[in-house]
């Protein structure tokens, strides 16, 4: 099992550009999450999904969008990138709501 995979590993964007961060899990988990991690701060939840076709906002959703068409994939879309979106983004999945989450390796995004 590959677990949770994320692409790309690194990306540099110009202000105003858009991009999609990809996330795939092969554990057949219904629950998937997107977090951002900023220096000196705890991870913050951006969006989450409880199953295919069902998504909801987390703590810091502004500037992002998600979709969940399959159990395996949970892409995160950045529209009109801003410097404040410079961060490391982690995707995670879990078997149920209160079980441990399995994290991907992260995407380091810089917006200049």
């Amino acid at each position, binding site marked *: 099992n590959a677990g949770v995979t994320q692409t790309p590993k690194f990306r540099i964007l110009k202000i105003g550009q858009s991009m999609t961060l990809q996330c795939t899990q092969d554990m057949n988990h219904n629950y998937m999450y997107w977090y951002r991690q900023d220096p*000196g701060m705890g991870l913050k939840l951006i969006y989450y999904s409880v199953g295919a076709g069902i998504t909801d906002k987390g703590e810091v959703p502004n500037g992002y969008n998600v979709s969940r068409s399959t159990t395996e994939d949970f892409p995160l879309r950045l529209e009109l990138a801003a410097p404040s979106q410079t961060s490391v983004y982690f995707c995670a999945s879990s078997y149920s709501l209160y079980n*441990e989450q*399995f*994290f991907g390796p*992260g995407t380091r995004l810089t917006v200049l």
Partner: protein
Amino acid sequence: EDQVTQSPEALRLQEGESSSLNCSYTVSGLRGLFWYRQDPGKGPEFLFTLYSAGEEKEKERLKATLTKKESFLHITAPKPEDSATYLCVHRGGYQKVTFGTGTKLQVIP
């Protein structure tokens, strides 16, 4: 304000020198207290879940304990490979999840 506070922020130990990391929280409605390990440039890796006060979990040189408002991660006779950042996570109701900022542990040979 809901907070998870970890202390110390950084800890430097000699190999074999036991110590404890602290996680205190003001968030209500605990549905699970999680500990993760994070190595530089990688995603967090799950270590333990604690659900109720008095519960303890052990794995190799690590032991996690939970009281009503804090959790401790005890490291016994650490080795250099235990060097990492240790994250504490409070899981509340539904999608209420609060991460601490972590304790960066360095174990010197």
